[in-house]
């Protein structure tokens, strides 16, 4: 095909976040054993229940096997060759942003996430996480006036021990899977959100995760609790420098929604994906799950996955409360030698529960993009409904797309609907747009964002624009 090379050029990705911040860090020795787990807990001055939680998880992890059922191929991870704690050196107790190392502030500035009082984003509160620690959280006082707690999980352990002890590990138990167990043993930092009863969070909350060092793993842990009749919209962004080694990222996110509460969790994942030969890039093994515990509660996941060499991620919903609602909207774009195995699990337990799945996979280059999803109707899920739509778009003729929908129903009085399609950007479509004066690159990105429209419509507004831009960026190259 005449256009084949052009397409290859166009999908070449310029990664704009690949810089390294030169900062003194405190790292512990490589490797993982019980002493390391104790050391992490000790460094974080954790209460005993948390050390026990970690140790139990570690012992479980030792007995578990790394899963191999995903449609992913990668060289074996050497868990003893990873540093499990790495933090930028700064003053022990930071009372205000002025005391944060300017280099760190500059880093987040460069990433488009200014943190200082003068420059901070006006309508979003940000928790900025650098390697293993949270360095700053904006708008804390303003949020506190509404009773909203938004801080790093390490701080929450100190200041809201009861909430952590009550909820940590209740959605994703340590024994859930290999990577969740690993995270439970060694998690470093992450965000904690608590929305009290009846409160609609006055602004979007956001965590920005930045991996900086090349030999440390990143294991963050996020916990969001929405009390009765409360609601929150939470955004998550991630980037990492370009290293020619692979960095392991194994996060756990737990969401809990009580009666009539609603949580909207949006992710734009742009970890370094490796180069065009597949060298370097983040190994992204993430467990995200929400529990719709209350009646009429709602949890909605939207994700735009564009980065990482390997993505293994299935944001899921446990629909326990009567009439609770789970949603999953996903765009996953893979290019070069990236591999993504992503999807969701909708577990209908309560009656009259409802779930919607819309997944858009785009594969370019030699990449591999799989949707894997489970819809389960339990024995009590009478009158429950699911609708799934999984579409794949192929760019070029070397990329592959797979769809693995699993359906298990133990309740005859429930409905499951599944639609799937695969399309390819055709030369004729490109020519049609070009013959109307539209540049090749713009034509490709118009079609890609058209394909993703259903998902972008679900993202918070600023995020939707960012996602659209990100995809265009990913698909931008040196044409002609």
């Amino acid at each position, binding site marked *: 095909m005449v256009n084949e090379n052009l397409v290859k050029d166009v999908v070449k990705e310029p990664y704009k976040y690949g810089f390294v911040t030169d900062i003194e860090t405190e790292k512990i020795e490589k490797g993982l054993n019980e002493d390391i787990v104790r050391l992490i807990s000790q460094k974080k001055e954790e209460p005993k229940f948390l050390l026990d939680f970690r140790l139990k998880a570690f012992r479980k992890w030792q007995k578990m096997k790394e899963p191999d059922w995903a449609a992913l191929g990668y060289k074996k991870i050497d868990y003893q060759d990873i540093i499990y704690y790495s933090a930028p050196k700064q003053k022990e107790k930071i009372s205000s942003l002025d005391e944060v190392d300017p280099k760190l502030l500059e880093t987040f500035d460069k990433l488009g996430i200014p943190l200082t009082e003068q420059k901070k984003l006006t309508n979003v509160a940000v928790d900025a996480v650098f390697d293993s620690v949270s360095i700053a959280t904006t708008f804390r006082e303003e949020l506190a006036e509404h009773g909203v707690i938004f801080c790093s999980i390490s701080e929450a352990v100190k200041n809201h021990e009861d909430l952590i002890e009550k909820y940590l590990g209740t959605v994703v138990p340590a024994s859930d899977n290999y990577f969740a167990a690993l995270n439970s043993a060694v998690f470093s930092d992450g965000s904690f959100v608590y929305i009290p009863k009846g409160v609609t969070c006055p602004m979007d909350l956001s965590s920005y995760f930045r991996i900086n060092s090349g030999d440390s793993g990143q294991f963050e842990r996020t916990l969001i609790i929405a009390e009765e009749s409360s609601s929150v919209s939470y955004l998550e962004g991630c980037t990492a420098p370009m290293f020619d080694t692979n960095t392991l990222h194994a996060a756990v996110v737990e969401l809990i929604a009580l009666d009539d509460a609603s949580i909207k969790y949006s992710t734009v994942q742009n970890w370094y994906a490796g180069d065009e030969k597949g060298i370097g890039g983040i190994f992204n093994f993430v467990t995200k799950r929400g529990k719709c515990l209350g009646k009429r509660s709602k949890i909605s996941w939207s994700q735009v996955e564009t980065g990482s060499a390997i993505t293994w991620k299935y944001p899921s919903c446990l629909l326990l409360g009567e009439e609770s609602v789970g949603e999953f909207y996903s765009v996953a774009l893979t290019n070069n030698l990236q591999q993504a195995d992503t999807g969701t699990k909708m577990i209908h337990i309560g009656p009259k529960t409802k779930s919607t799945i819309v997944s858009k996979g785009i594969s370019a280059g030699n990449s591999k993009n799989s949707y894997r999803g489970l819809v389960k109707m339990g024995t009590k899920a009478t009158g429950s409904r699911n609708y799934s739509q999984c579409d794949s778009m192929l760019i070029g003729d070397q990329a592959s797309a797979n769809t693995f929908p699993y359906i298990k129903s133990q309740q005859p009085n429930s409905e499951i609907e599944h639609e799937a399609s695969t399309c390819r950007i055709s030369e004729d479509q490109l020519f049609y*747009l070009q*013959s109307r004066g*539209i*540049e090749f690159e713009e034509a490709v990105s*118009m079609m890609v964002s*058209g394909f993703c429209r259903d998902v972008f419509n679900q993202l918070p507004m600023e995020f939707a624009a960012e996602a659209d831009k990100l995809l265009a960026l990913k698909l931008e190259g040196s044409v*002609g």
Partner: protein
Amino acid sequence: MQSKMKELDPILEVENLSASTDNLPILKGVSLTVYPGEIHAIMGRNGCGKSTLSKIIAGHPSYNITNGDIKFLGENINSLEPEERSQSGIFLGFQYPIEIPGVSNLEFLRVSTNARRKFLKKEELDTFDFEELVKEKLEIVKMDHAFLSRSVNQGFSGGEKKRNEILQMALLEPKIAILDETDSGLDIDALRIVASGIKKISNAQTGIILITHYQRLLDEIEPNYVHVMSDGQIIKTGQSDLALELEKKGYEWTDKFIKET
């Protein structure tokens, strides 16, 4: 050729053009010159190279020019990208307009119109100004505003697709429009709408090439010249009566001209 028109510079000159796709020769030395204000009709059997000629003029990447030149306003455009040709004023009305799922027709039309306006150094239009412009142009093709909010050509009937093509032509105001079987698949009412649209858009400064099988479009829009193509060549050129004769006698009648060329 009419002497009055000769004084003007030609819009399009196709000179001894040969082209192939997958090493298969399709055009074998086509020459054609279009002056401002002229309407040319190209007729011929399926597979004679009519559509290929139109696609090559628009810059379709699947065809290789093996010999000859295409000049637009005196400049050789053989190596220009399709979007550059469009921006500079070449319009191809597709025989089978392509569906683009998810891309809104309105946005598509706006981006396209602005690309042309940018080339012409005219101010690009924002959504509101464009709405005004497009409303006016919708009148020409008698299209409902609702078409704009749908995806490009998706789920459009044959007639709607063709009218959408003419709408694009009206927005882009090309110097030359090549309309590839715009009349095929249209009922009589739609044909009239399309024909009157073409007439409204064309003027003394523009050139039009109508590729068609049927006299009925030429009844509505009278061409200055009619060319008959066969096996990648123009085998006969005449005036509008040639089309009438062709309608009467069929393409077999033209076969005898092949030897003459």
